[in-house]
């Protein structure tokens, strides 16, 4: 299977720059997520790969072959759209059979293949229905079946979990990963949801306002965000960001706000070239703990805050805490009931903090 390469892609639609100088290599056989907020240009990028959007500048390659001007029907690609794009006037069977009809396959063979794919996805009992009679999850399976039956080299999935309810979305995440593994094909999945990336992707490309902010393995991008856009967006719950000042005193290095002072002298060497004073401290909610008494006694890297909300999500809790004028979130991997207004001590390890330049957003530590 070939890799996909995008070279210097720019796309403007009705005077609005959607993609700016995108160059990207998507490795074959991997599950790559394009992560970005709504309006980042994810769908446009997928449509360019599919050949559904024309290009004024830039090139698209499949391996060594330049496919920039190749029509969508000639590309060996299947795409599942956000709204699934099932043909509402055709039966589920006809929807799934459509790619095979385009190949002019004999009817008998079409029937056999449709049944195979439908039973693989557990939708064989739905073949005589029309899309209107299906639930969201069923629609999605039909759309995936239609994509799978073509047996393309590349699958493009555009926010296909967004319209599903929470429970089905959870189920589909693990199922999709399983299907992807079984097929062993290149999958490019556009999503605004960091959880999709964390649970499924081998690689991630963070797209923001038409620019690739960072690309790499999921782990690498998550642990080493290049800037505040990536750090702030890629994570669930999102990273806590607090305006701080970097201070050097008595050969020591601190970050301070009105409420807290953290000694980060261990990073003195790493930061000795940095001139900036105004920084943003980033701490992921899962890297903060509610301090036990023992930890409180040790007294390092502690900060006192007031609970403003305890949000129970499934078997986890996100505790919202107010520290001075800042609000931060702490992820507690269990159901944790704490009264609103209670004062608690929070602890975090300096190993897990990030520092960003407040002007440029560049990550200077982490």
């Amino acid at each position, binding site marked *: 299977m070939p890799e996909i390469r995008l070279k210097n892609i720019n796309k403007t639609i009705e005077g609005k720059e959607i993609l700016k100088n995108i160059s990207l290599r998507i490795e074959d056989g991997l599950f790559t997520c394009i992560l970005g907020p709504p309006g980042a240009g994810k769908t446009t990028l997928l449509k360019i790969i599919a050949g559904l959007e024309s290009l004024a500048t830039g090139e698209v390659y499949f391996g060594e072959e330049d496919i920039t001007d190749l*029509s969508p029907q000639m590309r060996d690609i299947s*795409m599942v*759209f956000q*709204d699934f*794009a099932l043909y509402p*006037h055709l039966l589920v069977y006809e929807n799934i059979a*459509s790619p095979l009809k*385009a190949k002019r396959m004999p009817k008998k063979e079409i029937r056999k293949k449709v049944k195979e794919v439908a039973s693989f996805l557990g939708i064989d009992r739905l073949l005589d229905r029309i899309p209107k009679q299906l639930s969201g999850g069923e629609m999605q399976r039909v759309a995936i079946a239609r994509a799978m039956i*073509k047996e393309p080299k590349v699958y493009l999935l555009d926010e296909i979990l967004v319209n599903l309810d929470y429970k089905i979305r959870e189920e589909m995440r693990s199922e999709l990963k399983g299907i992807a593994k079984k097929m062993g094909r290149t999958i490019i999945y556009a999503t605004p949801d960091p959880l999709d990336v964390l649970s499924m992707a081998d690689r991630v490309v963070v797209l923001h306002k038409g620019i690739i902010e960072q690309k790499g393995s999921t782990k690498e991008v998550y642990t080493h965000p290049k800037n505040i856009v990536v750090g702030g967006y890629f994570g669930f719950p999102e990273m806590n960001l607090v305006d701080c000042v970097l201070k050097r005193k008595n050969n020591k290095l601190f970050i301070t706000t009105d409420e807290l002072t953290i000694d980060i002298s261990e990073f003195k060497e790493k930061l000795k070239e940095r001139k900036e004073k105004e920084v943003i401290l980033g701490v992921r909610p899962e890297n903060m703990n509610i301090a036990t008494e023992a930890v409180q006694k040790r007294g390092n890297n502690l900060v006192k805050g007031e609970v403003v909300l305890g949000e129970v999500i499934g078997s986890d809790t996100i505790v919202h805490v107010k520290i001075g004028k800042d609000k931060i979130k702490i992820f507690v991997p269990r159901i944790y009931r704490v009264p609103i207004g209670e004062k608690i001590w929070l602890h975090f390890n300096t190993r897990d903090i990030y520092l960003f330049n407040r002007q440029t957003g560049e990550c200077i530590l982490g």
Partner: protein
Amino acid sequence: MKKLDAWVIGKFILLALLLFVFVFPLYWLVMTTFKPGVDVIEFPPRFVPSRLFFENYPRAWTEYSTSFLYRNTAIASLVGIALGLLIGIPAAYSAARFRYKGRDDFMFFILTTRFLPPITAAVPLYIVFKSVGMLNNVFALGILYAAMNLPIITWVLRAYFREIPIELEQSYMLDGHSRLKAFFKIVFPLSWPGIAAVTMLSVCFSWGEFLFALLFTFNIHAKTLPVKVAEMQGDIGILWGQITVIGTIALIPIMVFFVIIQRHIVRGLSFGALK
């Protein structure tokens, strides 16, 4: 309970009134065809003929070459509708789906052709038609009707095509089909209610068009039913019996057409929400 009764009665009265407004002219038209001459002009008017008089039918059919008029009207209307749809559907599709410079200006230009009252275009069009030898030609009249139908077809269908998610076509193309096939297999069936609606509107306009038919046709080879009906109000009086016969038989194909196409509109809408 009393409140409900009053509401139901009120609704019935309103419906009865509406029915009367719409159905009574039709009743009067058909009933007049069966009235002998004296009954028509009698005052106070007779709601039921004094006797059933069938003579109006053969007279109207033979004396005024109604079959020719019928044929002319049908040809002009069919050409007007078919040509209008043939040009209007691709125009609407292109305006709905493709991004190109001047698209919206082009659409506005199409609309401006309906800004002026038809009479203002009549003289220039007459000169043009005369210079190319297309006066008194039923097909030429059809072309004119197509031009008149075009703005409504293009504007209504563009709105309709825009309602159909582009992803349906794109998905079909990614299945391996051509854009043309995507149009005929996906867009066309889904926009059928819209196409049916503009066809209805075009039929209404073309079948009953009077002004251009009057100005551009001179004899039985090209004259249409509305023009002939107008001519029947002559020196010897108004031939109400024959006029209403022509009106009645002119009505039959339209009514049949509407009944058929209305069913399609309902069927098309029952596919449900597209998005």
